[in-house]
């Protein structure tokens, strides 16, 4: 059970960290163009969102990976991944032809694979949340109470 926590945190935290990093190192204009393709956010918010979201993903991913404020990081992960899934599902239901999900900057997945990945991450986030009621094993929360 103690290994389950570190494994789920490593997978979910690692994916968030990678996704945020790949977006942050690329031009934010490109990510902004991908966000606008979803037709969800008002134009005025797209720019700040394109700059800010990659860092939020990296911070949440890093906190989860190291098990620091694990419970809060797990909740933030659930919120992030649920939002991504809903945005993707909503665009698919509205018939928007997204060539790329925009999840990993230049290394993007097709929306079909992204839905599967999001579902896996969502399940792992729930596992991580359930295991974070007490400071999990191999976490900074355990070392720095």
């Amino acid at each position, binding site marked *: 059970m103690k290994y389950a926590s570190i494994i789920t945190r490593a997978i979910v935290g690692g994916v968030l*960290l990678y996704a*945020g*990093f790949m977006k*942050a*190192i*690329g*031009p934010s*204009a*490109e990510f902004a*163009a991908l966000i606008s393709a979803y037709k969800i956010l008002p134009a005025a918010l797209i720019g700040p969102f394109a700059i800010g979201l*990659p*860092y939020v993903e*990296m*911070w949440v991913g*890093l*906190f989860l990976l*190291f098990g*620091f*404020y694990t419970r809060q990081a797990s909740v933030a992960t659930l919120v992030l991944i649920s939002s991504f899934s809903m945005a993707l599902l909503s665009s698919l239901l509205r018939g928007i032809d997204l*060539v*790329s999900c925009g999840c990993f*900057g*230049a290394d993007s997945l097709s929306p079909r694979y992204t839905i599967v990945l999001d579902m896996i991450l969502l399940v792992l986030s729930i596992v991580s949340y359930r295991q974070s009621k007490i400071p999990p094993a191999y976490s*900074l929360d355990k070392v*720095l109470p």
Partner: protein
Amino acid sequence: MNFKRFVTASLLILAPVIAVHLVKQTQWGPVLATPPERQLGGPGAKVIIVEFSDFQCPTCARVEPTIHQLLDVYKGKVRFIYKYFPLKMHRNAMPAARAADCAADQKQFWPYHDRLFDTQLAWATLTDPTTSFMAMAEETKLDIPKFTACYADVTRTIGIEQDVKEGTAREVSATPTFFVGDERLVGQVIATDGARTIEKAMRQ
């Protein structure tokens, strides 16, 4: 929050910011050889502007007048190099690049390039843009049998993919991306910062 937790939190927050900053500081690689048909300006010009562009990208079409204006103002002082960067999200971008590359074979790259951007709205959403590209070939007085054979040759994409590889190595992922000397400008920023960046490159 105790002191140790405060320091740890600060480190975890700062680490990605520093990592991204360091990666973005990376120096761009050299500009690889480009056929002279896709270059404008004197070979001895002090400043080189490289554009990675996609014929189906609306912003690329919108910045065209700005590029023409900059090339007029800095005539003889800058050399402009066009690199193909057809984005996967634009289904007709690769065929358009192939058509333009075939026009380049007949020394008509720039007229064809201008026609592609001028008529972008008409062909961008077509299932098969071949008829439009053929019409442009006639308008730009190309040898049609030669153009047709060239356009049908799928190996033409190899050269285009090389430009894409070069762009990817220079961390291009959006179009248009310009390199003015060492500085990178993405999108319509060329309209506001283009002249300043050229002046800066000329001073270096």
